[in-house]
């Protein structure tokens, strides 16, 4: 019961058959495997947990420096360092299983069968509730162009993962494309249960005194509030065209920025870089959304999702 004597608004949403107690989760790669943020944000209070991207074999990642701050954003070139799917199942998953929170495992590969293989192992592991398929990584067989850059390869990966799992499949789109709607529709047709967007924008920054790139990898992925307008635009474009739920990601640093995504049509949101700004950010966002619903007399977050009025901006 809240101060007005009414029941608190319902925050529950459903993504590909999975019910989340609220629409807020961390973004992959910014939350490790769940343990690091536990002292700040009780995992049980989150809508879901999303892990760092997992590949078939362990990967060392890129040499440092791996990150650089940019105006209202940051570049990262971690290089998808991870322990590999077997170590993940053996060493990281048991910790997550102890909690009462859906576990979404982010996966990637350099070839279609690698994606399929990781999906299969995770589906049998127990304690995994959904897969989030990162298609922003380079397709080594096709000259390094990202799977997510072309509708055909994006659909191919989606279908391969779907074929190897009974878990809900969320496909995470890259924003570095001419037409995000085209990719989204291809992935939806290939059987994705949900879409998450956006991954990072490809960027670069230079140490002008030494005339070298700030990142050893030269380019990196841009994230943070700087990219939020691009992310909100893409979520709005895609949510208006697909039937499956969309998860909004990109530059959320407070509940107002999360609300932008929900109003634009996202059914849930992920907080990435925002957690570095404040390790309690996911909880602040949950509380902020609840307060907003109460203030606006809304009983259910569903009333908010996609509620943008576009006829007049005044």
């Amino acid at each position, binding site marked *: 019961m809240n101060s007005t004597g009414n029941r608190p608004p319902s925050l529950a949403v459903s993504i590909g058959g999975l019910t989340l107690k609220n629409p807020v989760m961390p973004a992959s790669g910014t939350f490790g495997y769940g343990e690091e943020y536990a002292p700040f944000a009780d995992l049980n209070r989150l809508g879901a947990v999303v892990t760092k991207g997992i590949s078939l074999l362990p990967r060392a990642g890129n040499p440092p420096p791996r990150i650089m701050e940019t105006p209202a954003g940051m570049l990262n070139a971690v290089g998808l360092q991870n322990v590999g799917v077997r170590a993940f199942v053996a060493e990281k998953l048991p910790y997550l299983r102890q909690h009462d929170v859906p576990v979404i495992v982010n996966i990637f590969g350099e070839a279609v069968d690698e994606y399929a293989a990781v999906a299969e192992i995770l589906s049998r592991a127990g304690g995994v509730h959904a897969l989030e398929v990162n298609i922003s990584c380079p397709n080594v067989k096709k000259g390094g162009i990202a799977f997510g850059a072309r509708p055909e390869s994006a659909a191919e990966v989606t279908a391969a993962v779907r074929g190897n799992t009974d878990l809900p499949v969320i496909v995470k789109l890259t924003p570095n494309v001419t037409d995000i709607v085209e990719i989204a529709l291809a992935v939806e047709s290939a059987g994705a249960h949900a879409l998450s967007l956006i991954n990072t924008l490809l960027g670069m920054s230079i140490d002008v005194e030494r005339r070298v790139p700030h990142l050893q990898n030269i380019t990196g992925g841009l994230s943070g*509030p700087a990219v939020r307008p691009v992310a909100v635009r893409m979520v709005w474009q895609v949510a208006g065209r697909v039937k499956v739920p969309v998860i909004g990601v990109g530059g959320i640093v407070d509940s107002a920025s999360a609300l932008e995504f929900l109003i634009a049509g996202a059914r849930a949101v992920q907080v990435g870089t925002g957690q570095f700004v404040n390790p309690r950010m996911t909880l602040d966002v949950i509380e902020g959304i609840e307060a907003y619903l109460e203030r606006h007399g809304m009983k259910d977050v569903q009333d908010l999702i996609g509620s943008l009025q576009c006829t007049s901006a005044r």
Partner: protein
Amino acid sequence: MLSNRETAPGHFHMVLGLPVPIADPVPGQFVMVRMPDRLDPLLARPLGIYGFSRQAGEARLELLYRVAGKGTALLSGLSTGRVLQVLGPLGRGFRIVPELRTVILVAGGIGIAPLTFLAEHYRGLPAVVEGREIVCYVGARCSEALVGLERMEALCSRVVVTTDDGTCGACGIVTEPLGLDLPSFRPGATVIYACGPGAMLRCLADMLRESPVPCQVSVEERMACGLGACLGCAVAIRSGENALSYVRVCKEGPVFDIHELDWK
């Protein structure tokens, strides 16, 4: 913030009062400091702990920092009373070996900050060994960049100073006098702790390659989360022949055994 004083050109000593409970920090640990309500700079900056005390229930944290760029420049302009976002203590600090007689500190520039807190810690230890001596080798670019010398001198048996330009102490780099004294250190009774710029640490790693004296170094890398979650702060460690492996400065570090790291 209780105070923020310029102690040498471009170097500041900041004292923070912490309103929420905080665990006792180990020397070598750090905090992530951020100015709230600003998206530029966006990320918190890691700063080593220079001092820590509890007075009447309130914890006080001391930082010693050098203006290196945008974030530290903005910090340096803040005045008493401003509220900062502080996360910590974080990371693995220096391993304390109370039974050793000789503690050698090697500080380059602002690297003196965590080593001062370490020296204070050793001075406060119950007397497991008699006549423990703490010797500090301090190097800086010039006399103006020598910060925190007085406080360090009060804590050490001996402080050896070098400056690149010879404006204070011996002219040269701090590893030179250390190298000369190295043969006199008793292997089983001595530990070296170092913190400073990469070039200094690399030189030290070279010098100690064959030495039986253990050495712990505190290293720096850019950080985002400070908690081990983002993998942004990786440094390479020596592993098998061609295998590359990275550890997190914020979680496995910032203090490492000098021989564990890959200095290439």
